């Protein structure tokens, strides 16, 4: 009642896949019959599997030359079957009873089969297809070599290192980055960087690559923002800061219209995160607003309308901080309150104090002399309060 392989009407599908079918049968038997005596003679098993693997590989090679779109799903599923053979055989109790070399040979053969299937049929997979271990192993070795080489050739290029973060993640946490999409992304990134290297490209060109590829990896974005932030902070004058932002803006426009680099087929590195260009634009306009605000503050206060302080900045800052912390204001944060005060007071040594001055003075360790001064001040205040009480609620000098 064996109606199968030889039956003429029964082969509308690819007859060439029978080797794979037979292979699956062996795997099934190895996997399922753990309580039987060894099913096969060890040497026969190895050579039989080797022959089947070779035959299957030849078949898939022939098949891969005449692919049509309607076969994609079936072939993807077939690859999944192949991919699930290896881990099963590795764990199979039956196989563990064979000599170690037999097991090694069989698993080696199946892994090779799996690798070839996935290489031959790579283009039929959908973006979310998760590639099996044997394929990933090859990709990890590849990416790892290029990654190490780049790091050793550009040991001080922090930008490059930040951009290579996806590769680093892939190497160290392969199982979480095992889709076709992420492998493709990494490979495009590496090939762009290789091209950049060959052209002896500039740092700005690295940014171009990142924008073209929409490298919206958090670590890279953070690196970019902190670098630009540092550059911006290095300018004292408002005009210089404005110029810096303008320059960055120009660079950004130039980079985002560059066509020198390959884009990733599947779009952004992280599909659910804002794109690099959105984030950069947001950051630039934020910084521009901040610079404008900075500009507005000094304009309205020229120094004449300010309340002059008896003591110096240090004393005032600590005093105010103490009072704020003890609940003078509803808001218990120092910085915003200092900002307000900085626009209306002046000191002997600095007529137009900045918010930063006040904050810095308030965050230093308070020295003994200043503490003495503060204590004396508060004692005078306390004395005054007592006097007012004795005076029936009136300030002493307000008269009788």
């Amino acid at each position, binding site marked *: 009642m064996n109606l199968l392989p030889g039956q003429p009407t029964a082969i509308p599908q690819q007859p060439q896949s029978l080797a794979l079918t037979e292979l699956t049968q062996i795997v099934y038997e190895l996997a399922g019959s753990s309580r039987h005596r060894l099913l096969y003679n060890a040497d026969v098993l190895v050579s039989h599997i080797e022959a089947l693997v070779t035959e299957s590989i030849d078949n898939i090679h022939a098949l891969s030359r005449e692919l049509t779109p309607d076969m994609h799903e079936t072939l993807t599923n077939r690859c999944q*079957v192949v991919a699930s053979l290896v881990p099963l055989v590795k764990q*199979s109790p039956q196989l563990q009873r064979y000599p170690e070399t037999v097991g090694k040979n069989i698993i080696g053969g199946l892994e090779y089969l799996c690798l070839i299937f996935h290489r031959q049929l790579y283009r039929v997979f959908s973006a979310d297809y998760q590639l099996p271990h044997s394929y990933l192993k090859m990709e990890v070795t590849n990416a790892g070599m290029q990654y190490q080489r780049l790091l050793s050739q550009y040991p001080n290029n922090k930008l490059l290192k930040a951009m290579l973060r996806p590769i680093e993640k892939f190497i160290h946490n392969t199982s979480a980055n095992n889709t076709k999409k992420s492998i493709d992304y990494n490979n495009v990134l590496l090939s762009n960087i290789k091209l950049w290297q060959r052209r002896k490209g500039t740092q700005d060109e690295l940014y171009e690559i990142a924008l073209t590829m929409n490298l919206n990896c958090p670590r890279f974005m953070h690196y970019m923002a902190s670098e630009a932030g540092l550059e911006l902070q290095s300018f004292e004058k408002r005009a210089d800061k404005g110029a810096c932002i303008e320059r960055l803006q120009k660079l950004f426009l130039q980079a985002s219209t560059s066509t020198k680099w390959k884009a990733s087929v599947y779009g952004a590195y992280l599909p659910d995160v804002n794109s690099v260009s959105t984030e950069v634009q947001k950051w630039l306009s934020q910084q521009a607003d901040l610079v404008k605000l900075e500009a507005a503050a000094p304009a309205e206060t020229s120094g004449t309308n300010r309340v002059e302080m008896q003591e110096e900045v240090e004393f005032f800052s600590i005093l105010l901080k103490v009072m704020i912390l003890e609940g003078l204001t509803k808001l218990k944060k120092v910085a915003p309150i200092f900002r307000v005060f900085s626009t209306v007071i002046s000191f002997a040594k600095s007529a137009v104090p900045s918010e930063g001055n006040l904050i810095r003075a308030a965050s230093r360790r308070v020295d003994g002399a200043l503490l003495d001064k503060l204590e004396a001040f508060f004692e005078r205040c306390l004395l005054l309060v007592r006097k007012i009480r004795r005076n029936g609620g009136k300030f002493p000098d307000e008269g009788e």
Partner: protein
Amino acid sequence: MYNDNIGELEEYDAYDGQNEYEQLGTQEYKEYAKAYKNLLQSVLNLRFSWEKDPEDFLALVLLTYKAIMNGEVEPLTDKEIAAGMVAPDVDTVAAVFDEWISVDYGSYQNFQQLRQTAIPSDTIFNEEYLALAESKRISFDTMHEVSHADGAHMITSPLYTVPHPITKMWAEAFTVKLAERMKLYDESLCEILLGHTIHLGAYMVI
């Protein structure tokens, strides 16, 4: 069903002298069971297509239903009902088939119409298969069944040497899917029956 075989099962263990499944809870075993389930699932995912007539499909569905209902059919217990278990019915069996093989209903709109208007063909799928499956199960005294804690279900039986290995895997995986949807009164008969017959209608090759 299986309970009758316990004595034989013990004999079977003794004959082999050891039992790897003693380590059911070990990490290796869990990985093994997971890999096994993956293989079964990927075989199901191949979605073979039905190549015979719709009337033949109807016959197979009815035959499968009979296999599931084999033996003593008791009403579902409260516990089973609470667990979301339902009693088998022909339409659901057909729906699960439909999920895992592509069936062309031809001139019929769907399975319901097929069932109401067509006469099941008995040229390919008939009661003989049911009898055959059962007689083989009964006569074969080393059949054993292992149900794993994690739900992977494996039946190892030399009964399976005749049909195609993919058929066996498919039947095993499909029976698990069926059991997720309804109570199977005779799970192993259903699996043996399908293992022997499914390839007659859906030719299975990887």
